[in-house]
């Protein structure tokens, strides 16, 4: 008689199989939706009561003073967004969904980084803000090289980048990115605005000599100014690239004396501009007569901070600027008042563009109803607004460049104060500085599609 033993007990093998199956079944949804846990985009603040912005500005290096002014503006913007202070340009911005209760009801906080005006350092600090501090947006900078580098990083990471002061055509040209937005004007616009003013003041027969900072911004500015001056009949005698931070430019200035040129175009910014302009004046260029005309110097991109550095040398010299504190429109006055009461002096153009970029980002989030980058991009693309100091403005969808009026300025002959160094000689209407998205100076890049980091 055989005896069959029947047992219901699980073997060890069965237990192992069952455990593995259970783990696979319960774990699978988490694996496939690991980025969607409570969120569907990178650094979603979720249920948190705060949202963090990243202010990446030069806190050391040659543009540290400009970076300090940018940071002042960002702090003021955060204050206004959180309902503190007098509200500044939030009161004049049209249309606006901003309520003074943070962004989407979340209190705005910020972290800062030091770009050092070096692409590597700027990328490293932006990366730290994105990965460690969980920022939803990075903004700031005083150099096109830095802006292009950080814009690329933000695109790859899936974060919105609202650039600070960047004037190279490439930022919204061949290096444009779907996640990047520029409020500041560009080199093409400077050329388009300056051309007619130069023609009116200096005539149609001039011979120009260019000294150009040897990097992306200098190259595109030189190209833009040559296009606009040659369009009014001027000829270009020489184009000389100078190393960034050369200090002593005498060896580049002396050849101008014998070149037959009667106009020197300084495609320099910041410290380089202060040095090259000061030295050009020392070599007596402004006192020279060439080809029967007074020798003239043009600085296509001006800033008040630079003008302060160059002192009396800026007198009578034409240039262009994105914004100036002496503008009388309601938005500019509200900002100057708010900034002045906070810090005791008027803001620079770098401070203005950074403040505006922060408000524009916050407003886009409110309109989109989310911080999700792709929806914020959609809210910013083609957005038309006014009351932020530059008149009617549009964020063009095709390249994420703001289109607005451009200011042509001149170094003031008799300044009434240490801040009153530039006078606005013409407000060039937007139509005059506009160009198609596929303009040759901006060709070669692709906006691509937005990335939300998921």
């Amino acid at each position: 008689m055989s005896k069959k033993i029947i047992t219901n007990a699980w073997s060890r093998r069965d237990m192992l199989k069952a455990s593995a199956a259970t783990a696979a079944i319960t774990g699978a949804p988490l694996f496939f939706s690991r980025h969607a846990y409570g969120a569907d985009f990178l650094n979603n603040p979720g249920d948190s009561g705060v949202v963090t912005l990243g202010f990446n500005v030069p806190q050391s290096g040659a543009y540290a003073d400009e970076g300090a002014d940018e940071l002042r503006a960002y702090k003021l913007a955060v204050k206004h967004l959180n309902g503190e202070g007098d509200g500044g340009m939030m009161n004049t911005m049209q249309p606006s969904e901003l309520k003074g209760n943070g962004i989407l009801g979340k209190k705005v906080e910020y972290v800062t980084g030091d770009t050092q005006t070096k692409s590597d350092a700027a990328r490293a600090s932006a990366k730290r803000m994105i990965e460690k501090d969980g920022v939803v947006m990075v903004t700031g900078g005083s150099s096109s090289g830095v802006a292009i580098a950080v814009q690329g990083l933000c695109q790859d990471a899936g974060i919105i980048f609202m650039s600070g002061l960047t004037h190279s055509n490439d930022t919204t040209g061949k290096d444009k990115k779907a996640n990047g937005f520029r409020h500041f004007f560009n080199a093409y616009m400077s050329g388009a605005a300056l051309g007619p003013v130069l023609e009116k003041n200096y005539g149609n027969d001039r011979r120009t000599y260019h000294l150009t900072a040897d990097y992306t911004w200098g190259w595109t500015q030189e190209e833009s100014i040559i296009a606009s001056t040659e369009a009014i009949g001027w000829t270009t005698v020489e184009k000389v690239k100078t190393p960034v931070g050369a200090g002593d430019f005498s060896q580049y200035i002396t050849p101008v004396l014998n070149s037959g040129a009667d106009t020197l175009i300084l495609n320099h910014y910041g410290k380089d501009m202060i040095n090259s302009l000061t030295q050009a004046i020392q070599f007596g260029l402004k006192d020279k007569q060439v080809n029967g005309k007074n020798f003239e110097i043009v600085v296509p991109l001006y800033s008040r901070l630079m003008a302060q550095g160059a002192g009396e040398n800026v007198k009578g010299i034409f240039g262009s600027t994105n914004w100036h504190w002496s503008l009388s429109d309601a938005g500019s006055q509200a900002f100057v008042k708010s900034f002045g009461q906070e810090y005791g002096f008027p803001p620079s153009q770098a401070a203005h563009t950074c403040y505006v970029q922060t408000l524009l980002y916050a407003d886009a989030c409110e309109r989109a109803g989310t911080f999700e980058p792709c929806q914020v991009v959609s809210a910013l693309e083609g957005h038309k607004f006014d009351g932020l100091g530059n008149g009617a403005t549009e964020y063009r969808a095709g390249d994420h460049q703001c289109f607005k009026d451009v200011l042509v300025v001149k170094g003031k002959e008799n300044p009434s104060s240490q801040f009153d160094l530039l006078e606005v000689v013409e407000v060039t209407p937007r139509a005059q500085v506009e160009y198609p998205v596929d303009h040759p100076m901006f060709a070669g890049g692709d906006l691509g599609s937005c990335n939300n980091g998921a």
Partner: protein
Amino acid sequence: MDALILQLLNGLDKGGAYALIALGLTLVFGTLGVVNFAHGAIFMIGAFCAVTLRKLLTISTQVRDESITLFEAYKEVPILEAKFPVVGSIIVDFSVPLAILIAIPVMLALGLLMERGLIRHFYKRPHADQILVTFGLAIICQEIIRHYFGANPIPQAAPAVVAGSANIGAFLGLGDNVVYPWWRLIYLLFSFIVIAAVFAFLQFTTFGMVVRAGMQDREMVGLLGIDIQRRFTIVFGMAAVVAGLAGVMYTPILPPDYHMGMDFLVLSFVVVVVGGMGSLGGAVLAGFLLGILQSFASMNEIKSVLPGIDQIIIYLVAVVVLLVRPRGLMGRKGVMED
């Protein structure tokens, strides 16, 4: 021809600055055996002596700026010029040359403090340690200046009487295009005078003779009962004064900022190496030589054949000189060869 004369003057001018900084570097290296990376910072602090004096002379009262109506802004009215309009303006106008009087004691004190307070502790340490500590010191000096004066260059005007340009072309019977700023010519003359003074001091004074002997054989001089260390400390102070004065006089040429020392330091080290470590004559010769070469390499005619040559010429020359003459142009045997 006009262009060549102008570039020669540019080169001499630039070379004057290189030579003055390199002279101090070589003096310190030749006597104390220290590779002083803080020497550029001393040049920068010298420049800021001029900035500080001007700031002191233009101390102002704040008056409400009526041109700004949106908020309470104030403009500054210099007290000295308000009280003594003529004399005050002249003193402010001559603030750069006057700063020399301030810079001499300040730089001497700073040099002695630096040597006694920090650098003497590193005499017997490897060169790498000396470089690290002096480089760190340079960064600390830079950041202190940036904290108090900001990052932007601060323009310093030359006295109005020499603010324009000299028409050298008319003087030499050339065209009107050969003009050169008066202040740069003064700087060139100044650098010749300072270099000559340093050489004369070392050559014709007892102190200088002892220092030179110490540079040759420190131990032997010590055995003769001479406190050579004390003299070398004074030499460090002297090197600081030379660099400081170079900085003061350079301010109308290059608006000073906190980083200007670092910009000159690297080039000056190349000058010292090309001239020969520890060779005073070599430092001066290489300073002027490299300044002139750098200026000529910036000429459009040369750049059109060799693009970018202006940015690498100094280093290119350094490589060639070190290949052909490993001790530099006037280097002595046995220096940094142990």
